[in-house]
């Protein structure tokens, strides 16, 4: 095992070490930001500032042309030796996200199953199901275009790759825009707020669970949109991605499909049940 690891080290080479400090800065930003939510709120802004710095630094480093290896590069010794370390990293991140969303959805279901009426006695759901159904189709379509982009770059079809990637970005922006429109209608039109308001206090619990679930999902989609925008920026630069070196496309795709999966559960739970 030591030999295998030494061989891997040798290929990367000490001089060609591709480690980056920016993921650590992002993790620190997340830790400080979330700690701020439950302890001292101004820390949230420190977290946001660190987040922006970390993202900018990482993108700048990446855009400067640092080589991160090819897609088929063997990675860790042991059971994961056939799995790219970056892909494994994204999957572990997705695992943490599964716990995150499960806790949010589980808590909302706990409140809902204990409530005698939902959303409130004698009140119909103020949610716009047809509009959200359209948004659901948009997200599903964006998952399809994302895999088409991957298929395109795998085959060396740059036209398909760039077109599908751009379509994914535009569909993502459309999803977020429709959600903003929906929030605007619900907040100001239906007086559905994340907190108790004096106009419709009976919707307080419903509003809290609704905004918590869809808001965190929307924030993740927004993050994905930024990722896709950066990927598009790189895709339209000549020869940046090639059939042999395009792992970033697959990894951003994994995240995007995960966001789609979360919506696959949220849509029926929040809107249809």
């Amino acid at each position: 095992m030591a030999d295998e690891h030494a061989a891997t080290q040798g290929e990367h080479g000490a001089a060609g070490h591709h480690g980056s400090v920016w993921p650590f800065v992002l993790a620190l930003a997340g830790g400080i930001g979330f700690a701020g939510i439950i302890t001292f709120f101004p820390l949230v802004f420190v977290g946001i500032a660190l987040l922006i710095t970390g993202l900018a630094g990482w993108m700048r480093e990446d855009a400067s042309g640092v080589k991160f290896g090819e897609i088929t590069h063997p990675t860790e010794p042991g059971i994961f030796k056939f799995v790219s370390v970056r892909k494994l990293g994204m999957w572990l991140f997705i695992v943490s996200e599964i716990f995150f969303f499960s806790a949010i959805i589980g808590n909302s279901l706990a409140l809902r199953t204990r409530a005698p009426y939902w959303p409130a006695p004698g009140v119909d759901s103020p949610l716009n199901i047809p509009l959200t159904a359209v948004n659901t189709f948009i997200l599903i379509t964006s998952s399809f275009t994302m895999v088409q982009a991957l298929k395109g770059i795998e085959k060396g079809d740059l036209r398909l790759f760039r077109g599908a990637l751009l379509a994914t970005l535009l569909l993502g922006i459309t999803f977020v825009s429709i959600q903003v429109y929906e929030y605007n209608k619900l907040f100001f039109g239906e007086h559905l707020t994340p907190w108790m308001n004096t106009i419709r206090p009976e919707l307080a619990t419903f509003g809290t669970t609704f905004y918590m679930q869809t808001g965190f999902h929307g924030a993740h989609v927004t993050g994905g949109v930024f990722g896709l925008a950066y990927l598009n920026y790189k895709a339209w630069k000549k020869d940046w991605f090639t059939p042999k070196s395009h792992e970033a496309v697959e990894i951003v795709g994994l995240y995007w499909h995960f966001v789609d999966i979360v919506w696959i559960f949220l849509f029926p739970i929040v809107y249809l049940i």
Partner: protein
Amino acid sequence: MSMETQEEGMGARFAKAAAVAVKKPYFAVFLVLGVVTLFEINVPSFGAYGIPKAAQVMMLMATAVAKATLVALYYMHLKYEPLVLRYVPLVPLGLVAILVLTLVVK
């Protein structure tokens, strides 16, 4: 196993994965996701035909699990990944089930 043999083994493994990649049924999955979503949207109206709410909830959860499985297997390529990677997202699902049941069951 020598390094050369091991590298060749890895190469063959990745080549096999690449060969499988061209057969991925992306459009068929997209169609199924769309049709199942159309079905889901209509489930709330099943109450008018005497189908109880509990049955509707079961239907919606079953279709959601089926859709998520399709996305994970085909769009996230778990079907074509080494077995060990498939366990990475599968293992925590058991813990998630415990968490959600603990929260939901009165």
